[in-house]
């Protein structure tokens, strides 16, 4: 469902790689590096796949032994943080 109309995407100046479990994000314009922990890296990877937050929560709930309610709160907070940091932006609707 969410993969059909992904609401977020990585900003154009973002470069991202996953090293083992950790994620590394370079904000090219700012020359800033962000290091993400295991779950943060997984969320960014799923965003990059085009999943919307509800889909991400569902995937994480399937992959990790965590409460979905808690996951939803965590993911929402993390997505807001990524937006504030200029890592992701809303997918333009056409």
């Amino acid at each position, binding site marked *: 469902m969410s993969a059909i109309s992904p609401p977020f995407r990585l900003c154009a100046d973002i470069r991202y*790689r996953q090293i*083992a479990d950790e994620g590394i994000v370079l904000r*090219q314009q700012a020359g800033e*590096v962000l290091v993400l922990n295991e*779950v*943060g890296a997984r969320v960014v990877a799923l965003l990059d796949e085009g999943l919307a937050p509800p889909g991400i929560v569902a995937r994480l709930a399937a992959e*990790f032994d965590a409460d979905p309610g808690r996951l939803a709160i965590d993911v929402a*907070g993390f997505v807001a943080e990524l937006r504030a940091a200029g890592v992701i932006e809303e997918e333009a609707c056409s």
Partner: protein
Amino acid sequence: MSYQALLAKAVNGNIPFSVLLELTYRCNLDCYYCYNDRSNGGRSLSVAQYVSLFADLRELATMNLTFSGGEPLAHPHFFTLGARARALGFVIRVKSNGHRLNGRLARRLLNEVDPFVVEISLHGASAATHERQTQVAGSFGRLLTNLEQMQAWACGCSLIRPSLPGTRPRWTRWTRWPSGWPCPCAGTCRSPHAIMATARRWISPPRPRRSVACGGCWSNDAARKRPLISTRHPRGANTAARVRRA
């Protein structure tokens, strides 16, 4: 985990985090110290082979991809390769002599390749010094013009200064020249994880009179840890994930 720890993890895990590709031996200058033997035979990779290589590197978690040469812009398919590398999410560096990088080409480079930085060799603060190395008359003035045009297009670049015979005594002039260049650190912003060990030996650390900050550099100082979910919720999903995966 800090950025440095992550780099160490990549090294220890044999992950080719940074890769340098010498696209071609062709060059439009004739630097006397150049180690590339243009008379050497051989066949360069095709575009399809490069694209396949890029895909492999991405799979291997390579993040930094440096295009070098020769003069990489002399490769007939440089922009095709650069655009492909960009699409695959590499952090692209271009090592160039800047001789061709006029405003039009700089704009194209920005639009199609979007490099993180263009590293340009500058051999001296005067035409006499610079052109003694390049052996091409007019290359100094042309480079300055190109740098100004690159600056106008906000194409991030840094200047590297190979330490060569005939240039060292003139370093004192670097401190007062030039003003208004694209990168205020004028060559001090070397990436901490550059893999060009040979070139590194040539590049002597400049001695600026004062510290300068460069907003366009990916330096140790720029790296910072952002512990996100795990720090705010130390007993949340992250902890559970470790338990389950173990």
